[in-house]
């Protein structure tokens, strides 16, 4: 990242901070990337709208859910913004509590958020209010779990939805499938399981 774009990024982050003040945390800068945490989840759409229309962040490169199991609040949603003309990146975060697992949708601002939010809902169970079509996207309608939550076992759980799909537990054999590249023999390179020492 060039010095000019780092400068541009921190200027735009400062503009956003000046506009919204206490709604945003202090700017956390790391290796030329600026991150702001939004204190009030309900305002995320408003802040994103301003970032797009006034600061030129016209591209949402990614939107993802994160599970910090054991912390409070448990979840966060991360927005990666990018300005095609300014070539600046900006990261916004909202923290989401497990009891009130809802965030306003930003699909009206960036259409691409539609499927990203559906994925975050499908995998993490974070609901996006005012989303036009909040269905599961990878798993099927009726699947009862949110499989990317940290307390969901890797091997899965048994489910049954007649004529649609079923799932069974995968045989873990004592550990996940992990390869060890560089080993001379296939049985060492790709063991049936490798437990964490």
């Amino acid at each position, binding site marked *: 990242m060039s010095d000019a774009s780092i400068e541009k990024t921190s200027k735009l982050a400062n503009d956003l901070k000046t506009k919204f003040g206490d709604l945003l945390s202090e700017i956390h800068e790391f290796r030329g990337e600026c991150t702001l945490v939004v204190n009030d989840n309900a305002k995320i759409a408003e802040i994103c709208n301003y970032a797009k229309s006034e600061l030129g962040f016209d591209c949402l490169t990614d939107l993802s859910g994160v599970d910090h199991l054991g912390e409070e609040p448990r979840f966060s949603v991360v927005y990666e913004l990018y300005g095609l003309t300014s070539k600046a990146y900006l990261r916004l975060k909202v923290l989401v509590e497990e009891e009130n697992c809802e965030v306003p949708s930003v699909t009206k601002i960036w259409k691409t958020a539609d499927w990203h939010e559906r994925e975050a809902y499908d995998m993490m169970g974070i609901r996006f209010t005012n989303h036009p079509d909040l269905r599961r996207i990878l798993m099927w309608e009726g699947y009862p779990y949110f499989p990317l939550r940290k307390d*969901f076992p890797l*091997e899965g759980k048994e489910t049954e939805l007649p004529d*649609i799909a*079923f799932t069974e537990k995968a045989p873990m054999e004592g550990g996940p*499938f992990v390869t060890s590249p560089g080993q001379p023999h296939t049985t060492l390179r790709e063991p049936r399981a490798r437990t964490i020492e």
Partner: protein
Amino acid sequence: MNPSQKEIGYNTKVEGDVIVTKVDAVLNWFRKNSLWPMPMGLACCAIELMAAGSSRFDISRFGSEVMRFSPRQSDLMIVAGTVTYKMALALRRIYDQMAEPKWVIAMGACASTGGMYRSYSVLQGVDKIVPVNVYVAGCPPRPEALLDALMKLQKQVAKEPLIRTHKAPKPDALSGVHVK
């Protein structure tokens, strides 16, 4: 010397237009040399399946070049790739729609056992939902491996008693198979 005397093999002039054999043998011979595949391409194995179908490896040497994308017209389902639970019952339905007699090749580690995807979303081997005739190792297997599997399947087909294909499959023919 009369050129006809140099002929090696069957001579219609001498023996007449008659071949004596068994119905089983001749029908199985027809079948094994024109197994029309249903290409169930679900992941990267499908690329190797395509390679097996193109000129360098040329699956038509074994009479299986007619890839049919309709289950009604195919005999052999080649499951090439990772079968997710979301796809599993669709795969089962396509298998059910194929006319008897029908065979299945599980191509690659994922189709055979779930492979490296030991996780919540992947069916741990397609033999949980359909009966598999030949498993192919590899991730993905090279086209030669698929052709070898095809030749092995041809040997199986050649030995099949014909009567099997005239009866409806018994309910326990798929015993141990996850039928929902």
